[in-house]
């Protein structure tokens, strides 16, 4: 099994699923869903195996595959995962698998829906497993057009129209990526002289050590990357696509975007920013930390004022991105461990949130907090899911959200004591809006009008059980996650400490 191309198999499984789906007749509704589920189950299984078999004591890139692709440009089909990307790959699979079941009730044009859902997942997988910048870019924007179509056709609009939200998301993300592409081009051209150029992330990381990338170049390139990855990560002030987008998207797409695709931005900042452009990162880190504080507080305040469940969670997810950015900007092992772990924990948590909101909306036909109440009476299972996600969101010990946030703060406090202090105070506001939301939606007197609503059952339970279990397991055994991340971050930071920092 040494040469078994595990990552290629993981990448090709959903693509194979897409091909199978595309030859299915359009009205084979259940068959289509089962094929999508099987596809994702295989991919999830393979990823779990990869996670389990990853040698933490060895660290570094594993399951490496390398095939020359476009030799004149120095592009290679080069795959590999390390402790940074493997948790995010697992996150993709967990959320991806759940989205199939969350979308089980979609009956309108289900064939197109599931093909595009799998395309979104392929895009996320590709970005996390590729070790070549060019291949990374091929996957980076794969999800944009499917997202647009899915929001348009299967989305739900309350405050803004679907067209508006979908177009806003598309244009924001694409404009960001235009700057990111320009950054990549500038990086590619400057890193090595003509003839030796390469897109290999490892080789590009060497360019700094060799002294090919001067500080001004790194500062400009990283700024361009920050515009791109920052808007993907919904960094303030490039966030406004996110709440509208999540609110208008169908549940599965909200889950994937808030849970997974957003993290591609954070991953890009670390993988391409930190590893390849350490001097640029060092220059911009204080600004990022300041933005992070704004992210945390501003989004939390806005969330306080929201009435629509999806908007609350949308702004909450922007607020949480602030913690991730804060961990990134502090630039030490502990804080970056925390940031990556937080990406994972937040991904699971927000996916669970959106799944539960989707269930509530399906059954009660409303997402407005004032119109809801006492749902724990009629839907205890949904209430459990909500509680798990909410408690994880406000960082209750014992759930996956606690350790990453705590680690982030421990790491960041040494570097930015003031910013960290303000950011920690953001937890209070988080607690306020989360607890208030949970109380108003789930608890209180029993309401007659919801008596007809059935609790989650069957396929609807899959995401609840899967994501809820992950939250608890990773809450009690954070070492599974942190150990893996640390095994890769520590050697990387050790090299950088010697040189740049």
């Amino acid at each position, binding site marked *: 099994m040494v040469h078994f191309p595990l990552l290629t198999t993981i990448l090709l499984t959903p693509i194979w699923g897409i091909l199978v789906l595309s030859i299915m007749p359009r009205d084979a509704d259940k068959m289509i869903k089962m094929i999508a589920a099987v596809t994702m189950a295989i991919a999830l299984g393979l990823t779990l195996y990869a996670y389990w078999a990853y040698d933490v004591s060895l660290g570094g890139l594993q399951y490496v595959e390398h095939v020359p692709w*476009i030799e*004149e440009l120095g592009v290679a089909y080069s795959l590999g995962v390390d402790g940074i990307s493997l948790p995010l790959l697992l996150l993709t699979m967990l959320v991806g698998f759940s989205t199939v079941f969350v979308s089980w009730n979609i009956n309108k044009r289900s064939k197109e829906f599931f093909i595009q859902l799998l395309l979104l997942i392929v895009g996320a997988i590709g970005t996390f497993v590729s070790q070549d910048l060019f291949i990374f870019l091929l*996957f980076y924007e794969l999800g944009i057009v499917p997202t647009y179509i899915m929001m348009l056709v299967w989305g739900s609009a309350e405050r803004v129209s679907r067209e508006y939200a979908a177009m806003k998301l598309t244009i924001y993300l694409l404009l960001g990526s235009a*700057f990111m592409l320009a950054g990549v081009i500038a990086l590619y051209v400057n890193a090595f002289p003509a003839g030796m150029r390469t897109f290999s992330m490892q080789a590009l990381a060497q360019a700094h050590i060799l002294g090919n990338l001067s500080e001004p170049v790194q500062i400009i390139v990283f700024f361009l990357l920050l515009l791109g990855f920052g808007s993907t990560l919904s960094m303030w002030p490039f966030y406004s696509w996110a709440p509208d987008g999540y609110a208008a998207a169908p549940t599965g797409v909200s889950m994937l975007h808030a849970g997974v695709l957003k993290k591609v931005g954070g991953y890009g900042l670390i993988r391409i920013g930190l590893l390849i452009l350490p001097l640029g990162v060092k220059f911009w880190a204080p600004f990022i930390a300041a933005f992070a504080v704004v992210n945390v507080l501003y989004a939390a305040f806005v969330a306080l004022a929201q009435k629509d469940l999806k908007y609350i969670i949308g702004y909450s997810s922007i607020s949480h991105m602030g913690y991730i950015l804060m961990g990134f900007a502090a630039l030490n092992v502990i804080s970056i461990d925390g940031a990556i772990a937080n990406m994972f924990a937040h991904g699971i948590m927000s996916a669970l949130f959106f799944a539960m909101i989707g269930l509530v909306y399906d059954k009660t036909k409303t997402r407005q907090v004032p119109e809801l109440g006492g749902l724990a009476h009629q839907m205890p299972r949904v209430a459990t899911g909500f509680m798990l996600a909410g408690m994880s969101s406000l960082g209750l010990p014992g759930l996956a959200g606690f350790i990453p946030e705590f680690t982030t703060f421990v790491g960041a406090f040494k570097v930015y004591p003031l910013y960290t202090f303000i950011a920690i105070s953001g937890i209070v506001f988080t607690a306020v809006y989360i607890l208030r939301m949970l109380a108003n939606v789930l608890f209180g007197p029993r309401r007659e009008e919801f008596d007809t609503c059935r609790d989650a059952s069957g396929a609807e339970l899959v995401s609840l059980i899967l994501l809820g279990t992950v939250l608890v397991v990773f809450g009690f055994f954070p070492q599974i996650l942190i150990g893996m991340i640390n095994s890769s971050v520590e050697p990387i930071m050790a090299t950088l400490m010697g040189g740049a920092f």
Partner: protein
Amino acid sequence: MNIALLTSEIAVVILALLIIIFDLLLPRQETRRSLGAFAVCGLLGILVYTFSQYGISATVYHGFFVVDTFALFFKQLFIVATILTLLFSLDYVEKMTRNAGEFYALLLLGLVGMMVMASATDLLTLFIGLELMTIVFYVLVGFDLKSVKSSEAGIKYAILGSASSAVFLYGVSWIYGFTGNIMLSQIAEHITASPAVLFGMGLMIAGFCFKLSIVPFHMWAPDVYEGAPIPVTAMLAMASKAAGFAIMLRVFFVAFSNLQMYWLPIISVLAGLSMVVGIVGAIWQKNTKRMLAYSSIAQAGYILSGFLAANPAGIKGMLVYAALYMFANVGAFAVTIAVYNQCGSDEIEDLSGLSQKSPLLALVMTVSLMSMAGLPPMAGFVGKMYIFMAIADNGYLWLAILGLVMSMISVYYYILVVRAMYGKTVKDQQIFTMSGSLRIVALLSLIATLFIGIYPAPLATLANAAAMALW
């Protein structure tokens, strides 16, 4: 004198003449579809023959006509474009006119003009090729006699086109007057940066830019593209534009390469302007062809920016882009024609609900448009990367950033088409029919666009060999 080098051009002319003769001999009521099929078969044969010319680099007629890898690359591009256009327009032409034979014959003669342009190494041959192509297009644009729009477009194109040819010729005369030569390689030896030469060069740039619909010489494009019969619009967008780039590349990198410091800044401004004006113009369009016309202005800007690298890498990018732009256009126009055949008009509105009526065509349209916008993993992304990496290397990062930003903005109007196809409901419940040849072309463009996007190495190798031929 090795007249055999002209075999492919001669063969196309003979094919065109045969079609005219067959058209006369066929009984009046018999369908002229067969003539289109005949032209396709003939061109396929010629395409196969051109592969045997690889590796040759020889001239004929005292060096006025060259067959090298560069010329060959473009000739094959033109032939493939013509074949695909013929294949997807069989139904359309049959419906449009009773003189289908003439239409096909003229299209082939236009092709000969382009092929001559690709091989021309002196200003005179180049002009003859150019005029052969444009005069044929004057006729073709106005070919749909039942449509007022088409006739109007024909007249417009003829008047503006002749004016631009005159400007071009005037520029040529200045260059000839001050260098005493019309051979490009000889001009390069005798050229000096005198005001007169620069004036002549400026006039030639204006002439080229008209043919390429580069801003500010683009005004004709939207009206002509909208009015012309769809196959002619397709040929204008992909083949005639590529032919214009072929001669422009040869003239600037062979004859004017010593004057780079003068023409590089001009070209950078023209390219930037084209991107901005093309994309801003396209946002407001309601008609598919008119939208594609504005988009083609922007695309011409992208390709033109490849000049700024001033090295084979940039030219390679331009050639790759010209090829993938052809495939994207084939896809988009094939879908436009299929929808036109169905409902008799070509507004974006008419595409409503296409994803329900014909998922294949909706997918082809989406992939083609996204390729034009340059979204990965479609071919357009690779093309843009080739061009922009080359020009960033030469210090034009600002233009690369502008190009990338504009191409992402262009997604806005492309995605409005996607919205119509996927988001809107079907207007009528008619069953959607299309001919087999159209389906094949659509599928081919889809496969080619995705293949080039994911694995561009083979095309890039071809383009690289072609680009090296200029050095």
